[in-house]
């Protein structure tokens, strides 16, 4: 089995009010060096790594469901089976 880690984040042009609220709380904790916080989504997907279409499949899942290309981008990485 292969573990695929998918990270979905807002494009730079998109306002992230949740990240802003978290940043304000962090400043409230006294960490005033923190310049910016952006929130995103993280997915762990376990797949049969022997499938020849695994990379295509992951990209299709990201394009069609996990990320909205209007406002988000994504990246993913494969973790080898022995590490899972």
């Amino acid at each position, binding site marked *: 089995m292969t573990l695929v880690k998918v990270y979905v984040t807002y494009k730079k042009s998109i*306002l992230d*009010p*949740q990240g802003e609220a978290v940043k304000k709380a962090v400043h409230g904790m006294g960490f005033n060096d923190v310049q910016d916080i952006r929130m995103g*989504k993280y997915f762990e997907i376990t797949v049969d790594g022997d499938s020849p279409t695994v990379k295509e499949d992951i990209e299709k899942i990201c394009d*069609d469901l996990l990320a*909205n290309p*209007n406002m988000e981008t994504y990246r993913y990485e494969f973790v080898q089976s022995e590490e899972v």
Partner: protein
Amino acid sequence: MKFAVVVFPGSNCDKDLYFAIKDGINEEVELVNFQETSLSGFDAVLIPGGFSYGDYLRSGAIAGHAPIIPAIKQMAAEGKPVLGICNGFQILTEIGLLPGALIKNNHNRFICETVSLQVINNQTQFTSEYSANQVIDIPVAHGEGNYYCDEQTLNELKQNDQIAFKYQSDINGSVDQIAGITNKEKNVLGMMPHPERALETLVGSDDGLKMFQSILKNHMDRVNQ
């Protein structure tokens, strides 16, 4: 005229829309479960507000892959009226029937109040009973109603007269204060405000009634041609 109101897990304005048709304009209406795969026999489809699938992932994202969706796309392709309100608007952008996306309100708060909208395009089958530039009072209730699109898309919306409604003030950060848009063909409308909650002066405003009357009138005009 026969209307379908699609019900997803988590829809909560489906019955309001049902009664808007049944009692508001006295036409035929059925609630259609999201697991159905056909809308044959219906003249229009309404996608209600609510929180389909608990807004998991993104509002409207999971509903966008429900079994009923191809039938909604088919209705749109046939030129029949497709109206998405609030969560319905979010679903229409997710399935690509309308451009852009709805993101979190820029002030991070859920807004629930009656707001003033201006009718920007009254030359559509959803808005023809309104007068040009008429200002109407319609309730909003959303946390993710901030309409976003890139500049090129905004220019296209303007050039093609796709902006149906604008807020009279900036309530949520929407690009160009957009409250509702249509597709290029003008048979698909998505809007964040809730016309189905503004059918009687008893509840504050009856300005929403004309939308349903517009849909009916344009349908009857087509039938009688």
